[in-house]
């Protein structure tokens, strides 16, 4: 691995223990701390990071995972009832998103793709804002600067380059100002399907060349709509980092503790100027790609069942109960909170205002543009014609 300023021994330990060094055909190492049985294991590097997570934080992880799963169910239902044009479910990927999201600091900037509802929740984005895009009333309602959570990007992998450029901006800010702003990094989310896009390659080349403070967080959910990961790559995706000269780690994406630990390590690595990291969160898209998709056409239900056994919420629930860190009242409260969130989302969705197309005219350009003015004037006149027709008819 490329950089030389890691905590003593870390780099060597990673090389020996993580997925980074595996070649095709070799068994692939994966960082896992909390197994499907709910038992906490150890890792030579990341157990130290896991120890920073106190019981209260674990309960927050569970609460957030449960809330976003409930939100996902409600959004799917809203689509089925015709309230949303489309929904992109995340069920199965809660640990990858909640764990990594919680590892980020407020000053870090997040570039999601379009399934990162869990990260949005952690970054305090009003979840009703996410639904605007899927109801067809906005292409991105929230102000990305408020929560440092960028708009969803639907053209796969385009945002990975934006993330690297943003990280290059952070590097320059640190040189321009002598302020005591906390050091910041960027997370670029993408998936196993998008990993085949050229922009991912270019983003990793740029990030490596400029040692940009960016963490590439790839959720390998095994399916790019109907195409399995094997068609995208012949090696574990984490291994690709080696070709660019920075660390790559495969982590159990259904293990919220390991995801948090690995992401926290990677973000510290980036913030401290040691360059980019690729994390491959090994997880599974339990549901459909979108509500327009039908997974029965391309995969076996046995595969889905096997992954349900590795459910991220179940294993944390087991751990919390076994360790006496959460009682029945806690889980009842989580359920009640989820129902409350679902109610909020449902009522807010119904109330989402249909925008006026005049707003679209207003936001094409930041500065005055004569063609926009001309076309808007035409539209106003055209619309006014209908109004005067109505007056005449009345």
């Amino acid at each position, binding site marked *: 691995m490329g950089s030389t300023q890691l905590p003593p021994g870390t780099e060597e330990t990673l090389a020996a223990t993580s997925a980074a060094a595996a070649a095709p055909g070799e068994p692939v190492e994966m960082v896992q701390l909390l197994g499907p049985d709910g038992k906490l294991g150890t890792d030579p590097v990341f157990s130290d990071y896991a120890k920073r997570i106190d019981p209260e934080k674990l309960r927050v992880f569970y609460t957030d995972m449960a809330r976003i799963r409930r939100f996902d169910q409600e959004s799917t239902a809203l689509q089925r009832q015709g309230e949303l044009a489309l929904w992109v479910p995340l069920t199965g990927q809660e640990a990858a998103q909640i764990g990594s999201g919680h590892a980020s600091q407020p000053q870090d*900037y997040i570039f999601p793709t379009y399934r990162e509802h869990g990260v949005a929740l952690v970054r305090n984005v009003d979840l009703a804002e996410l639904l605007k895009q899927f109801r067809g009333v*906005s*292409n*991105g*309602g929230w*102000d*990305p*600067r408020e929560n440092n959570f*960028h*708009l969803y*990007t639907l*053209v796969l992998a*385009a945002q*990975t*380059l*934006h*993330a*690297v*450029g*943003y*990280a*290059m*901006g*952070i590097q*320059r*800010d640190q*040189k*321009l100002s002598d302020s005591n702003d906390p050091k910041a990094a960027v997370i670029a989310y993408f998936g196993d399907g998008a990993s085949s896009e*050229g*922009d991912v390659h*270019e*983003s990793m*080349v*740029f990030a490596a*060349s400029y040692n940009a403070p960016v963490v590439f967080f790839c959720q390998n959910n095994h399916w790019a709509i109907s195409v399995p990961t094997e068609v995208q790559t012949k090696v574990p995706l984490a291994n690709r980092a080696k070709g660019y000269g920075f660390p790559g780690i495969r982590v159990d994406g259904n293990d919220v503790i390991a995801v948090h630990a690995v992401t926290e390590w990677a973000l510290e690595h980036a913030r401290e100027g040691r360059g980019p990291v690729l994390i491959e969160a090994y997880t599974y898209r339990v549901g459909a790609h979108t509500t327009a998709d039908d997974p029965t056409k391309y995969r076996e239900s046995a595969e889905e069942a096997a992954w349900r056994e590795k459910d991220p919420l179940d294993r944390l629930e087991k751990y919390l109960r076994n360790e006496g860190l959460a009682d029945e009242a806690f889980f009842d409260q989580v359920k009640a909170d989820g129902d409350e969130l679902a109610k909020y989302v449902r009522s807010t969705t119904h109330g989402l205002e249909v925008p006026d197309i005049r*707003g*679209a005219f*207003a*936001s*094409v*350009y*930041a*500065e005055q*543009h*004569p*063609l926009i003015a001309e076309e808007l004037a035409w539209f106003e006149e055209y619309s006014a014609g209908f109004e005067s027709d109505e007056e005449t008819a009345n």
Partner: protein
Amino acid sequence: MATMTIAKAINEGLRASLTSNPKSLLMGEDIGHLGGVYRVTDGLIKEFGDERVVDTPLAESGIVGTAIGLALRGYSPVCEIQFDGFVYPAFNQITTQLAKIHSRSLGKLTVPVVIRIPYGGGIGSIEHHSESPEALFAHTAGLRIISPSNAHDAYWMIQKAIECQDPVIFFEPKRRYWLKGEVDVENAGLSEDPFKAHVVREGTDATIVAYGPLVPVALAAANAATEDGRSIEVIDLRSISPLDFDTVEASVKKTGRLIVAHEAPTFGGIGGEIAARISERAFLHLEAPVIRVGGFHMPYPVAKVEEDYLPDIDKILEALDRSLAY
């Protein structure tokens, strides 16, 4: 007043922006120590360092995509695409991202990225080095497209492009890089607004509209036409998007005849857009159909035959004859 080439004028304009705006930076292939394949950025890396004059990896999508990220962080990046025909790997970033982020964010985000592209033919170059892809970008809302034809405009328009809060594609007429002209570095004068067309030669019998590399050709054709006693008005469009139809319309209402010349193929090109708009705005003033002079519907031909492809003085005069014959 100083006399300098268009290439030098852009260089000086970039220097002025880098000096006045600490958040501006240049990025592209070979723009640092080499100074760009056309030396437009010559010497700037010495003056501003490699954090502000950035030699990038050889990846056009990467250049524009990371420029977008820098702009989101508050920077004003100026990208150089080495040649017109190499912009296509960045087409996705330019059209689906750069052009749309302001709109997608309902105006909350701005991405003041400038993309410099040397364009056009006439230099005897190999494939992909002589193209005029401006119409592809003009068709995309959210972008501004401008192209200077002289040194004074080049000096000021590049600075105005960098100041603009919208993304600007700055097409540089590469066969005119060494064309010298007077530059007033103190006063922008008429160049103040880069999105307005200029009447560069007044006349009464017909109007020729051109931009970038063909403005000198249009002027030469207009001069040649005086031998036949014709008085020809020439408009340097300067901006392709937005397009200053008001200036063209006013001229056509005076002359009654319009020729539009560009190197890009006529089919689906800017000339067609001008013809359509002017026929709507000035139909009863037109004495003849709007005539387009441009490239054929073919990939840009090999260098040894490019003269047959490119609009030149004779082709414009032929178009004038056809127009005046009505």
